[in-house]
């Protein structure tokens, strides 16, 4: 368990992208006074664009599995690597073979089997982690390098680094990635709640069902918010019905607010918008749920 410094860890998810995960994460961090938070959308991180920090981040390279290269002067053109590679990562051009570094997953089979010892390892930086350390907040973020296949491992790495700082917080917020694959699974692991931000569209609804299933297999309790709910009230109410029928906690709905979209990353949120009254209501609900479960 890496989250023993936090009483409760909440990961913000959505399945579908662009429903408002980062915007909501940013609001929750402020409203819940979270002192430890991480952007785990390592393939397209954005939280650092809105989290104003006064310090420079401490950065670490993340070294994943090496990739491989064929030394052309040693290669005897036998084609064994070409026929063995399960990822079709070896290109044949004329009688020469080349390894496509984006397709190579680093299994090393070609190197181990090459009768001419013509294949060598190349070290691979798969991404970077960044930690912003301030007196009353600790913010972690990370970014994969282009074409990296180690997003999930990078998520685990930044979470581990943050946990090693031993900062205490009541609620840790994790801004999660879209989808349901390895980085999502690594983000959900060892969290108490998965706060799913969905939107009223057939696409958003279909993705919601898949992410709910994913959170349940990882034993993180799903809680749902419908964002931009007024854009399609019919589908919003269909989603609410689905949640009720499947015993999934519904925290509330938020309206589409043009100002949030326009200003989300340029300036601090204006607190006069009606959007925030609904946010406060949702936060009240959320804290109630956390409080209730503590008693159990």
């Amino acid at each position, binding site marked *: 368990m890496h989250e023993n410094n936090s009483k409760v860890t909440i990961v913000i998810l959505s399945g579908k992208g662009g429903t408002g995960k980062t915007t909501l994460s940013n609001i929750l961090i402020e409203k819940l006074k979270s002192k430890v938070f991480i952007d785990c959308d390592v393939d*397209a991180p954005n939280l650092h664009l809105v989290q104003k920090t006064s310090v420079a981040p401490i950065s670490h390279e993340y070294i994943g599995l090496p990739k491989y290269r064929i030394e052309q002067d040693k290669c005897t053109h036998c084609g064994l690597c070409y026929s063995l590679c399960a990822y079709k990562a070896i290109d044949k051009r004329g009688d020469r073979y080349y390894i496509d570094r984006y397709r190579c997953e680093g*299994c*090393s089979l070609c190197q181990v089997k090459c009768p001419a010892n013509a294949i060598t390892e190349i070290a691979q930086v798969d991404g970077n982690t960044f930690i912003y350390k301030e007196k009353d907040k600790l913010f972690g973020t990370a970014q994969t390098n*282009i074409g990296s296949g180690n997003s999930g491992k990078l998520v685990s790495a930044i979470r581990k680094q943050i946990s090693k700082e031993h900062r205490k917080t009541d609620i840790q917020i994790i801004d999660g990635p879209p*989808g349901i694959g390895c980085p999502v699974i690594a983000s959900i692991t060892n969290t108490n709640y998965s706060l799913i931000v969905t939107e009223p569209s*057939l696409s958003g609804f*279909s993705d919601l069902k898949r992410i709910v299933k994913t959170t349940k297999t990882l034993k993180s309790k799903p809680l749902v918010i419908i964002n931009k709910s007024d854009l*399609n009230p019919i589908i919003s109410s269909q989603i609410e019905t689905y949640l009720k029928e499947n015993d999934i906690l519904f925290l509330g709905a938020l309206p589409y607010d043009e100002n949030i*979209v326009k200003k989300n*990353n340029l300036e601090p949120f204006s607190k006069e918008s009606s959007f925030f009254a609904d946010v406060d209501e949702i936060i009240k609900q959320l804290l109630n749920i956390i409080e209730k479960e503590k008693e159990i």
Partner: protein
Amino acid sequence: MGKFSIAFLSGKGGTGKTFISTNFANAIDSSSYVDTDVEEPNGSVFFKSDKTETESVLVKIPKFNYDKCTGCRVCADFCKFNAIIFIKKPFLVTEICHSCGGCYQVCDFNAITLIDKEIGTVDKSVYNGHKIVSGKMNVGEMSGTPIIKQAKESINDGIVAIDCPPGSSCLLLEAIHDVNYCVLVVESTNFGFHNFKMVYEVCKQLNVQVGIVVNKYDGENKLIFDFAKSENINILDVFPFDKEINRITSSGGLITDIPEYKSRFENIFKKIQLQSKEEK
């Protein structure tokens, strides 16, 4: 006819990749559509069909024959992914296995066979003459790369619209592998712009032709336009944020069923054709 693949990508999720690519395929005669956002595929929401052919996507995982296993642990030592745990005998952690087949290759005692495991499906259907292919990963699986490969291999000719996954990881690279053109769908927010630059870098590195469609334009944030100008990138079209478009799309409709929008997408395609001829 040869194959001309156009990928629709964005970095950030929810900028309108599926919106633009489904409408593009719907507007261009005899084109095909391939959904490679295998974690959360939504193309079939728009291309409804009662006749769908489903094929499994299978990968190979090892099965240990303990009668033949001598406990030499060569397989466990070989596995770079640490998917084989060794406690007197080898055991597979299925979720971590990357299906490289290496353990099978290095075992000197024929104690390993490779068996099929389904990680997802590829659905094929036809919608108004358009071939529709949709890759879908099973919930709980780690990586959908083989599903993307298989989905793309289903179409061998004609104009192909490839709806990509978000991000810039291995999944995206597989989706844009060997495509002829990349349409970058950008939302005019700071988040959208930041993630756009990441995928633009990917396209530059791969040396593939690009054009931009600005979506949900708010009329204010000019970052993308300034950048396109300075980098000399073709802006193919600009769609404002429009509640009516949102209503149609969120309910599973295609705006290119309206003639005005159909001609706009035909125009986008003309610009792509022109650019790819010129730059050749």
